């Protein structure tokens, strides 16, 4: 079973993604902030990370290179309600940028695509 880490400060989104992705047959771990996420990246065997950008403390764009520094080649999807970070160079290190939506079709497709790689 493939393992996905969902990083989001919004509990509702964590719960939603955990349920939906579990239904897809993935094992889902959650982290409520970037520091917790970095700890899990270090400790757990992961196949993919879904990373929110706007979070208190360390934001997703700061956490992204650190995640990649800890686990080279680990696929990361940035998942933000905002589109403006797409133009930030710092977001380009992610494998995909998916704008948050109640419709999870795009996110699920990206997850599937990146995990199959």
């Amino acid at each position: 079973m493939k393992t996905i880490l969902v990083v989001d400060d919004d509990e509702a989104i964590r719960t939603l993604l955990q349920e939906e992705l579990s239904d897809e047959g993935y094992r889902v771990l959650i982290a409520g902030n970037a520091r917790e996420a970095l700890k899990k990246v270090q400790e757990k065997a992961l196949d993919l990370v879904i990373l929110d950008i706007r979070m208190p403390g360390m934001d997703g764009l700061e956490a992204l290179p650190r995640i990649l520094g800890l686990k080279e080649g680990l696929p990361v999807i940035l998942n933000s309600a905002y589109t403006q970070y797409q133009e930030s160079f710092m977001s380009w290190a992610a494998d995909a940028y998916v704008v948050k939506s109640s419709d999870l079709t795009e996110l699920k497709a990206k997850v599937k695509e990146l995990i199959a790689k």
Partner: protein
Amino acid sequence: MDGQKDLTTIIMAGGKGERLFPLTRDKAKPAITFGSLYRVLDFTLSNCLNSGIRRIYVLSQYGSFSLDQHLRAAWDIMHPDLGEFIYSMPPQQIMVSRWYRGTADSIYQNLNLLQQERPQQVLILSGDHVYKMDYREMLDFHLSRDADMTVAAVMVPRQEASSFGILKVNAGAEVEDFLEKPAKPPGLPGAPGFSLASMGVYIFRARTLVEEVIKDAKKKSSKHDFGGDIIPQMVGRKKVFAYNFRDAAGQPRYWRDIGLLDAYYNAHADLLGKEPTFDLFEAAWPIRCRPQLYPPSRYLSPGGCLAVGDSLIASGCTIEGTVNQAVLSPGVRVGPGATVQGAILWDGVEIGAGAWVNRAIIEDGVKVPPGFAIGRDLEQDARRFHVTENGIVVVPNNVILEE
């Protein structure tokens, strides 16, 4: 330069310079003395200044204090209130907790800097080369080709090209491959007796640079080097051009990588003579160095003349012996009856009376005792000092010479 605010300039100055040991044992390669008054980095920084570039990041790593010291002493000339700066940047450890793994990785680790600047183009330079180049001409070429990346390159005779990183180009100057020290270097279209050697000077479209260093950072097999990794990664996918660094007559212009002790020594010979290969006296292209207060040099020869010829001699020297084909930094003393031939003497070196120095590099502050000989018996020298392949004796300043 038009659109100069759209250009970010980054000088790579973090290399360890192991092949210049012992000169680099306690300082960065770009911080070592060159050509009497200068530090190697002064040539690249002067090129920037003479090209109208006044916003410069110097990426340091190994021996960064020596670079900081020099930047403070010689290059504290920018006006931050006008948006000008020279910043020395060791690895920030903000993005990742590691040293720079290679030239491309040093850019990757500073993506936040590029994000702050959001330039259109990025000029990437090396801090350990000796040359005079107007980067505006290269930028014009880069923009006129709408290139993703332009690599500056100099023609070298094909039979000597195996010691360089060589660019394989087509007739339209588009780069087809990068070959690190190839056994059979490819000839240049239109000039088959020559190959094009990469000068380690690059201009990138900023967006492309970011994409490519990110891509490279994810490759486990990569050495994260612009020449060996980024160029091959881009060839065939992106527009990569070679900018041939030559004069109006089509002859290669002067460029030296002083990465080896013998190359460092030989580049000094290029400074000497009435019409030197590399002219420090060109008024149109001043090379800036650290300003120092020294009295004039004096030549002492009671009752006769001294034989001093074909040399560069800085201020503050006292010469009482014979000096020929030598490069003397400030404050050097050559005692009565001493002979200095084909030598590079750094600041404050003292050559005792009757001593003999031939084909040597002597670090700052070394006191050569009276009657002592360096470069006369290489076997004996090799027991005490480093002697290069070409027989140049290198005397570091952490040894005490005895009579």
